[in-house]
């Protein structure tokens, strides 16, 4: 930890001493510029006790990106929510990313009929919600009804991953049988999602406002709500009697930590500094340029692979007509130089996408050969499609210019610069990209406007690719493609693992290569910054596992 801070400080302090008020602005700028790689001392003691086991106790401070108020659990498709609710709610099953298998959690056992239309779950004995209510078969049935049918009185929409749900019945004290309208080979996986977290029947009876308040969300998870300061922090305390972790979890008992405090750092520039100074133990949303600073300052750069999601992509909408021809979309797919995106705006924490599924996702196939950068092929495809280069270098057809617009949220710290680079790459093949990435106000309407050609995104895919690309109003393509939907239905109805795998492979080929409705970019990853004392792992949905987390030298 030989660091450049003291001389820089001394220098500017000396300057401050002699110069006058007007200089202040310049001096502070210089100071902050010098200091971007610097860090406060302290926290150095932790590194020594590395090899010893987990330390009991302590308060863990976790900084999320933005505060949220609507905690309704079925709509937990945002990281801000799912990252926290992951430690409050248990699920029936758990996806073990290491083995790629679904293992038991609250369901000690589960089986499906051959047609994948009936699923029977055996509920573990002795599990209770934090309000004391038993988490038994009856409670599970109530949760299934809420997930599959929605909650009318509370205006809670059904969970999209449970669209095949018909009904469930309680068999004896600890068994629940779910019946589906249509076969769904992804149903089990959907029960592992944070959005299908089990809540106390009392929570399900509340109105919309009631279910949105974190104080009212009663789960069976390792942490329990304790207090809240609106928009500033939420504090959770560990549940001492917790002993029903996922079957493969290293820690089968209560959390090591006493408390978990969730804070918010909307300002991206402060995230690296927050962990370097030890003000937080873990922060989400580290920028690639801050990764080196964090590592050099003794902190940890922790990339969490988002196996449960699609890869990052520009999802294609064809309504404007410019991208109606698959050749044009294929041209854009090979007109992206992914290696240069990684080299320029990403970091070592990021992996270039080779499909619409992440490398570690079940059923992933490697389409890298079809995704190789080939501007000549792109130009030829565009020529074939009848788009000729105009006087200004932009292609045109029937008096229309090949000008395309992208929208995305600002939640991803790298999405805007990535599309700036793609804008340059596509310019070479005669395509103009209007980059509205990271403009959240534009996004609100653009997300549901089929004339906006691209939506830069990644989505949880617990129910497979069907719910992501299938429905008429899916926010990716805003279009129901009958061929794709036939394929999705066939995949859901697959009765053997091998057949399912082959159909998932075909879906990827269709989405990426044949129809090119998903211009894939990089595997989903959330880069966290951790203090030197933090020990934490992540779920396949990138959520920190606070139940197994601990702090050395607390």
């Amino acid at each position, binding site marked *: 930890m030989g660091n450049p*801070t003291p001389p820089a400080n001394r220098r500017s302090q000396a300057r401050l001493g002699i110069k006058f008020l007007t200089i202040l602005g310049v001096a*502070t700028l210089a100071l*902050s510029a010098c200091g971007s790689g610097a860090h406060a001392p302290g926290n150095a003691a932790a590194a020594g006790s590395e090899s010893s086991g987990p330390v009991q106790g302590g308060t863990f401070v976790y900084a999320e990106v933005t505060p949220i108020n609507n905690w309704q659990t079925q*709509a937990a498709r945002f990281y801000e929510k799912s990252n926290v609710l992951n430690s409050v709610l248990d699920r029936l099953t758990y996806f073990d990313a290491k083995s790629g298998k679904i293992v038991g959690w609250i369901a000690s056992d589960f089986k499906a009929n051959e047609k994948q239309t009936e699923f029977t779950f055996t509920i573990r004995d002795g599990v209770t919600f934090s309000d004391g209510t038993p988490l038994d078969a009856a409670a599970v049935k109530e949760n299934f009804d809420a997930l599959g049918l929605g909650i009318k009185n509370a205006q809670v929409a059904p969970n999209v991953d449970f669209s095949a749900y018909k009904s469930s019945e309680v068999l004896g004290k600890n068994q629940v049988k779910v019946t589906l309208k249509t076969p769904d080979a992804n149903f089990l996986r959907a029960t592992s999602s944070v959005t299908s977290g089990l809540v106390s029947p009392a929570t399900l009876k509340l109105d919309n406002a009631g279910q949105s308040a974190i104080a009212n969300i009663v789960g069976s998870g390792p942490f329990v709500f304790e207090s809240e300061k609106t928009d*500033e922090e939420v504090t959770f305390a560990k549940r001492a009697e917790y002993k029903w972790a996922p079957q493969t979890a290293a820690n089968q008992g209560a959390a090591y930590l006493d408390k978990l405090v969730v804070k918010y750092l909307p300002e991206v520039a*402060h995230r690296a500094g927050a962990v370097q100074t030890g*003000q937080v133990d873990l922060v989400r949303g580290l920028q690639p340029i801050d990764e080196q600073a964090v590592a050099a300052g003794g902190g940890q750069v922790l990339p969490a692979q988002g196996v449960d999601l699609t890869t990052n992509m520009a999802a294609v909408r064809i309504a404007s007509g410019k991208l109606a021809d698959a050749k044009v979309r294929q041209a854009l797919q090979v007109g992206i130089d992914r290696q240069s995106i990684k080299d320029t705006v990403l970091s070592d924490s990021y992996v270039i996408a080779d499909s619409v599924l992440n490398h570690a996702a079940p059923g992933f196939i490697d389409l890298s050969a079809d995704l190789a950068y080939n501007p000549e092929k792109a130009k030829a495809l565009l020529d074939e499609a009848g788009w000729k280069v105009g006087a200004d270098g932009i292609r045109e057809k029937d008096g229309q210019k090949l000008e395309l617009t992208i929208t995305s949220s600002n939640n991803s710290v790298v999405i805007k610069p990535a599309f700036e680079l793609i804008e340059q790459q596509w310019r070479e093949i005669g395509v103009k990209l209007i980059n509205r990435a990271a403009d959240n106000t534009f996004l609100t309407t653009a997300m549901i406007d089929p004339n906006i050609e691209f939506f830069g995104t990644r989505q949880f895919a617990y129910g497979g690719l069907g719910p992501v690309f299938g429905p008429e109003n*899916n926010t990716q393509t805003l279009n129901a493609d009958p061929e794709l939907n036939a394929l999705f239905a066939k995949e859901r109805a697959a009765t053997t693992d091998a057949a399912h795998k082959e159909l998932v492979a075909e879906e990827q080929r269709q989405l990426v290569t044949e129809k090119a409705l998903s211009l894939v970019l990089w595997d989903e990853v959330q880069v966290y910054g951790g203090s030197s004392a933090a020990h934490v792992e992540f779920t396949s949905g990138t959520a920190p596992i606070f139940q197994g987390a601990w702090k050395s030298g607390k």
Partner: protein
Amino acid sequence: MAAYIARRIGQALLVIWLAYTLVFLAVQLLPNDPVTIFLSADAAASPETIAAMKAQYGYDQPLLVQYFSQLTGLFRGDFGYSLASGQPVADRIGAVVGSTLILASSAFVTAVVFALIVVASATLIRITWLKRLIINLPPLFAAVPVFWLGLVLLQVLSIQLGVMSLFPDGSFASVAVPVFVLAIHVSAPIAQVLLKSTETVYAQPFIDVLRAKGASPSWIFFRHGLKNAAAPAMTISGITVGTLLAGSVITETVFARAGLGQVVLQSVTAQDVALVQGLVLLTATAFVVVNLVVDLIYPLLDPRILKSGTHGAPRALAA
């Protein structure tokens, strides 16, 4: 006097009603309705769900019905339901309004003190280079962006020196620094206008008369100059309510503070219409009330306003 007050209050109510109506109409021009926008933020919701939810919150009613039911709701204290935050608008705003009030009012008082110090020292100090330096401070304050100053101060104080937290932890620094950042920005226009009007007052013959009678410079400034120069600065102070709110959006984001600023940001990005309407109503009310108070103070500073009948005169001067 009573007629003057009644007229001012009547105008204030009219402005609030117009602002509310304008926002209601503007919202209708948006390409989508609040329910569709809310549900699209999640994965694809079915059309039936969207329809059911619209009916639940009354967004399926004809425009006029929506307008009048929302308007009458206001009188019952019902400001609507914020879908994105899952709570009534009044609760959402009520939970954080105190934090912004503390920030904004402290920043305003600090800004006025800054402005007074700047103007007093610029007027009373005799050393030419120092005087010139002070006169140039307000333009500098106006030029420094709020977010930049906040970022730099946090970088230095919290990350480099470790003397304050990046989060609002209730310590003195975690309140004082954001107040300072916001105050710097707000003080600039007040100081600039006060400086200018002080110059104008000092050019008038009665100042020469006071000097000739042997009054000290500080006596002239505090007893005569400031009082005569205050009216335009007060008008500007009333208008800074807008600057304060805009500034608190940024300050609250940079300092991770709860407050109206954060709520404005969230409600606009989520197009949470009911919440936006509630915020506009609140802002318009704050703006109007502050300006009403300013208008009511004018006659105390300058009794001619009540006699002349041209109530707008001092404001026109300031503009």
